[in-house]
């Protein structure tokens, strides 16, 4: 393979339409006679709904219909949960609330009108009578006995309890020289994709076909679930994901509104559209994280970690969305971090509260695990007076110990943790940084250095470990004109696989990048696929593309050999053409059959049997891929028993996850007067295996770090004691902005994975996983002169200012 594109900073092929404002997100799709839907949502966290009076709304101008929970309860199936934990309590989650509301923003009624303004006006005319109930807001209280119960049928608010891990944890902690305990919180976050959710549904009564345009990460899985919810044949349902304005896990879900819009279009016979407002997005799109934990870490006097126990209450919210209960189990899997820890135990209590459901948000359980284990290593270092770098180094597995088995039951594929650490330390000039810090401290300045060495689990994943298939699919086609079409089951929404998959295909097929088109996100065009999440699209979906191309080339080689009068073993492919090595064989020998057995084709009078058939080069030694494609489609002269056409489909099932890793180093200075945190440096070395496009990898890491930084310093979803959402708009929910950030100094090491032939590990979540602990560690280090060893996120200036003020 001549690598003309792979490995290079190729600018994206998807960009021109986006930078010109000509791309189509759901709200940009216009269909005639579209109805617009606005939702009436609960203003209470927990209440009985005693009556819904829509009469005034129905009289309002432009209103076509109002649907309530009673109208749809028996018509649309429940919102699905893919969790399959033992004894999991799964509440019946209907698309509209009927008798009770369970969180602020819970949809109660759908108002359908000819104009979005009219729908919004009429929603205010729907009168809902509520009997307010005590709200369950605090997850720790929810986990205890007594108090209000949200789903009465279960008798308590505990959705499940789970213990996992291997090794003798009691022995490890009992025999340790030091045991350190710390309460550790991963606060609730809002994903805030810049494009809120949106759905457009069109039912064609004649064809009995429903098309749903949705801003989703999982078009095929959504189609299957909508078929079940709506009780319609899956092959009459088409899901299209047009441009998707960010997801971060929040669109890796099946939402009530997606099914309801389909149903409304079926009722009205007209297209129906709903575009989520940001306020709705904060209330009723999944949140992330929200784990309240206690750790116990035991170590020897030299810093060797013997055991780690994590007792955690996971705040699941009022209902399960698609993967809600599964997220804390991913935390359990990754608790070993990049360390040899002989005994690990996680005890999860998942509880219902009167809040929006938590689910997958960028990292989905792994940032929580990495934060826990990295804080644990910092606490060990602080307890023993070790440099945090040294504490980590003493617990790394060596590169020759891979595949490395953890006490959480995983096999890490490949890694060189010390290699990435050393490179990051060198890039940051760590020794010099520590010397500068010492000087700064002597002058009363609060400078802190934080180091995190992380490993994450990517390329989700083997189907055995996934609720609904962990493979990914690809079809690669060479059209009669020689253009290459790639159909991927992945569903990129900003990650750039229209470019990176085209890079792969262009190199493998020796064609120009512009001659490759990557199509995704249309269930009627693309073979079944799983979607984009869990840093899987390139490692799993890209591999499917790669193998499909290899198969396609095998077929093309047979046709080329036939055209060149030789056998497939005697042709080689390079630079977009097949070349015959050696002499031409007899036609019969090359075809492997006696031509006399083949009846001659019946031709219209006067037509040349060769017709428009491609011919080899004048010397008879070369035939281009384009000519092979044409020959395959014209099918006038193919080897015997050869199927016409030139396409290949492959479903790639990975044998394992992949485990990218790296080191992040944050250097901060805390302002003594305000408690504000200012960045001095940010250095990262990430290892995501082989890199197809370094430009895209850098972009993923930047974005990931900033979301991590948001968690460390700014973001938190706040519900008050009555369950009202305090951070209900972007005025209240603090997101990182351009002026709050350091300049990221990125570098890489490259340890290929043996799990797939591309050697690619995945990078979509690395920054979010690696950066949070580095930043918290840096701030804690800055405050170490005050005896601070740990602080809860977000590290607000007020918290820091109070610590400084108390000394």
């Amino acid at each position, binding site marked *: 393979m001549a690598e003309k594109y792979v490995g290079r900073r190729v600018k994206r092929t998807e960009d021109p339409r986006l930078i010109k404002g*000509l791309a189509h997100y759901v709200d*940009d799709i216009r269909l005639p006679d579209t109805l617009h839907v606005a939702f009436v949502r609960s203003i209470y966290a927990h209440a009985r709904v005693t009556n819904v009076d829509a009469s005034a709304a129905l009289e309002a101008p432009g209103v076509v219909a109002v649907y309530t929970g009673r109208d749809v309860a028996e018509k649309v199936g429940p919102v699905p949960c893919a969790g399959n934990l033992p004894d999991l309590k799964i509440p019946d989650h209907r698309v509209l609330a009927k008798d009770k509301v369970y969180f602020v923003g819970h949809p109660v009624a759908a108002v359908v009108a000819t104009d979005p303004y009219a729908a919004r006006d009429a929603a205010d005319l729907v009168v809902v009578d509520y009997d307010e109930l005590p709200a369950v807001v605090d997850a720790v209280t929810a986990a205890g006995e007594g108090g209000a119960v949200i789903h009465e049928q279960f008798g308590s608010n505990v959705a499940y309890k789970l213990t996992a891990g291997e090794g003798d944890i009691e022995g490890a902690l009992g025999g340790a020289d030091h045991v350190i305990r710390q309460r550790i919180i991963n606060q609730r976050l809002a994903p805030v994709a810049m494009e809120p959710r949106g759905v457009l549904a069109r039912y064609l009564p004649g064809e009995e076909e429903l098309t749903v345009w949705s801003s989703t990460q999982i078009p095929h899985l959504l189609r299957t679930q909508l078929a079940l919810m709506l009780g319609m044949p899956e092959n009459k349902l088409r899901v299209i994901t047009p441009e998707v*304005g*960010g997801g971060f896990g929040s669109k890796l879900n099946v939402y009530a509104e997606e099914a309801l819009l389909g149903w409304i279009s079926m009722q009205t016979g007209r297209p129906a559209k709903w575009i989520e407002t940001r306020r709705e997005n904060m209330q009723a799109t999944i949140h992330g994280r929200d784990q309240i934990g206690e750790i116990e870490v035991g170590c020897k006097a030299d810093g060797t970690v013997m055991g780690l126990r994590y007792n955690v209450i996971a705040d699941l919210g009022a209902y399960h969305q698609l993967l809600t209960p599964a997220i804390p189990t991913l935390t359990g899997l990754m608790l070993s971090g990049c360390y040899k820890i002989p005994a690990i135990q996680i005890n999860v209590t998942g509880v219902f509260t009167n809040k929006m459901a938590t689910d997958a948000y960028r990292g989905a359980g792994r940032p929580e695990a990495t934060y826990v284990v990295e804080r644990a290593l910092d606490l060990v270092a602080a307890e023993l007076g070790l440099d945090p770098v040294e504490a980590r180094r003493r617990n790394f597995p060596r590169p020759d110990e891979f595949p490395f088995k953890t006490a959480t039951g995983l096999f890490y594929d490949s890694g060189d943790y010390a290699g990435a650490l050393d490179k990051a330390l060198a890039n940051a000039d760590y020794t010099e940084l520590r010397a500068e810090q010492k000087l700064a401290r002597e002058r009363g300045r609060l400078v802190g250095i934080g180091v995190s060495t992380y490993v994450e689990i990517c390329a989700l994943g083997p189907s055995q470990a996934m609720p609904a298939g962990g493979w990914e699919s690809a079809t690669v086609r060479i059209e009669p004109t020689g253009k290459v079409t790639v159909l991927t089951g992945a569903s990129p929404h900003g990650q750039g696989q229209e470019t990176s998959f085209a890079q792969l295909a262009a190199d493998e097929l020796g064609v120009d990048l512009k001659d490759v088109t990557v199509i995704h996100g249309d269930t009627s065009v693309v073979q079944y696929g799983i979607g984009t999440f869990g840093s899987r699209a390139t490692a799993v979906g890209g591999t499917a593309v790669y193998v499909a191309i290899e198969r396609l080339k095998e077929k093309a080689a047979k046709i080329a050999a036939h055209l060149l009068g030789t056998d497939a073993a005697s042709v080689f492919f390079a630079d977009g053409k097949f070349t015959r090595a050696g002499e031409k064989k007899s036609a019969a020998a090359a075809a492997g059959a006696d031509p006399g057995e083949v009846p001659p084709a019946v031709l219209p009078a006067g037509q040349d049997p060769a017709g428009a058939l491609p011919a080899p080069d004048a010397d008879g030694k070369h035939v281009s891929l384009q000519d092979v494609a044409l020959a395959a489609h014209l099918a006038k002269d193919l080897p015997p028993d050869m199927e016409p056409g030139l396409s290949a489909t492959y479903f790639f099932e990975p044998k394992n996850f992949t485990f990218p890793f790296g080191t992040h180093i944050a250097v901060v200075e805390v302002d003594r007067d305000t408690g504000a945190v200012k960045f001095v440096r940010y250095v990262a070395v990430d290892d995501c295996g082989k890199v197809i496009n370094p430009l895209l990898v850098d972009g993923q890491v930047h974005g990931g770090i900033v*979301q991590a930084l948001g968690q460390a310093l700014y973001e938190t979803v706040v519900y008050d004691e009555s369950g009202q959402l305090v951070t209900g708009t972007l005025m209240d929910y603090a997101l990182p*902005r351009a*002026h709050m950030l350091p300049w990221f100094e990125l570098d890489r090491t490259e340890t290929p994975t043996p799990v797939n032939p591309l050697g690619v590990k995945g990078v979509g979540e690395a*920054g979010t996983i690696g950066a949070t602990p580095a930043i918290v560690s840096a701030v804690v280090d800055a405050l170490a002169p005050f005896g601070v060893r740990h602080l809860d996120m977000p590290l607000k200036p007020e918290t820091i200012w109070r610590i400084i003020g108390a000394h």
Partner: protein
Amino acid sequence: MKRAITINVNGTEHTHEVEPRLLLVHYLRDVLNLTGTHVGCETSLCGACTVIIDGQAVKSCTMFAVQADGASVTTIEGLARDGELHPVQQGFWECHGLQCGYCTPGMIMTAAQLLERNSNPSRDEIRHALEGNLCRCTGYQHIVEAVEYAAKQ
């Protein structure tokens, strides 16, 4: 009660009868079908709806269409001239200044207006100018580089 307005958008004059409460962004998107201008919030905080009105970068979700009566508006669709990308558009492409692309039109309009005011901004000045525009994908660094690229053109 509808009111007649005349607005010049991307060099073309449009006259329409609109409701006084119609937001400018909805006028652009739903009346003129210029859907490149996006809506990301309803509190004027995300900047996805930024357009240029009489030379100023303005969040079009916080302005009524009737307030733009007589004004000259440039949207993302009107930024490229004669098929040539504006330097800021080119910069976003060259420097990978976008991922999902949703904030991009607003970012580009804000950056273009910055360069009108200050043709050679420092990194800090670029970051300060983009404070009112949220991006959740890129971490802003490539956006800063994109604006630097444009400034050099």
